[in-house]
């Protein structure tokens, strides 16, 4: 999906860093990952699975082992997207997704507190 096809003003910026951003659409109940020149749409479960797939990559082995490629294909069954990443990109993506999920957690805590205050 091209970034130009989506109206960014309709999206909520969940987390941004130097490598990319994660956006949320409250209207469509979905998330967008803007990373490495690719703008990809995920549902919640898919983004969580994608994050777990990124975290499972052994970066140390990628850097030190001469038997394996310097690149890693990241995807999972049922995922519409495939990323080909080098070690630096894996670290960047990991950091971006961790930041986004920290924000989700923070948002959950705030929502939880607000419900308590109101009721």
């Amino acid at each position, binding site marked *: 999906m091209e970034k130009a096809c989506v109206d960014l003003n309709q999206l909520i910026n969940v987390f941004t860093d130097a490598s990319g951003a994660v956006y949320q659409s409250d209207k469509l109940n979905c998330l967008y990952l803007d990373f490495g020149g690719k703008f990809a749409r995920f549902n919640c479960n898919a983004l*969580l699975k994608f994050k777990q797939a990124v975290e499972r990559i052994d970066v140390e082995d990628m850097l030190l082992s001469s038997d394996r490629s310097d690149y890693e294909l990241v995807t999972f069954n049922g995922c519409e997207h495939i990323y080909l990443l080098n070690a630096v990109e894996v670290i960047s993506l990991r950091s971006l997704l961790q930041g986004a999920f920290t924000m989700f957690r923070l*948002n*959950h805590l705030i929502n939880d507190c607000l419900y308590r205050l109101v009721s």
Partner: protein
Amino acid sequence: MKDLMRIKCLLSTEVEALLNQQIKKEAHSSALYLAMASWCNQNGFDGSADYFMKQSNEEREHQLKLFNYLLDMGANAISPEVLGVKHDFAGFREVFEEALEQEIAITQSFKNIVARCHKEQDYVTIEFLNWFLKEQREEEYKARRALELFEVIGEEGTGRWHIDKNVGKIEYNSEA
């Protein structure tokens, strides 16, 4: 901003992971009791073999109860891999000692999950786990009583035969 994760799933990632770990522990318990049933059967302790077979089935039911709860809450329930199940035991008494140790470990594990749920104020899961805490009272009681038969009856002479005949009669009837 909508809490999309909460809409999809009632549980936090941490509680989900802990419950999946518990599923694995229950599966391991079930497999271990099955191994104990096998050992008892091969050594002529039919009553104990039946007792452990029943225990194994109960652990499997616990595993499925946790599994279904995760699914009902919108979480990812993971079918566990069970490795390293012990099949050799030094003797009849050691089988029951291991069974009690196993139950104590399971109780401790549930306490840890409940502690985490209290921290997160996840009262829904606490209410669900209360059934398991009560169940553990029974499980530990039965395992302890079984081991106490070795002290009460003694292993000498026909002692083991009597222990084997009485293990299946242990019941927990407390209404407390």
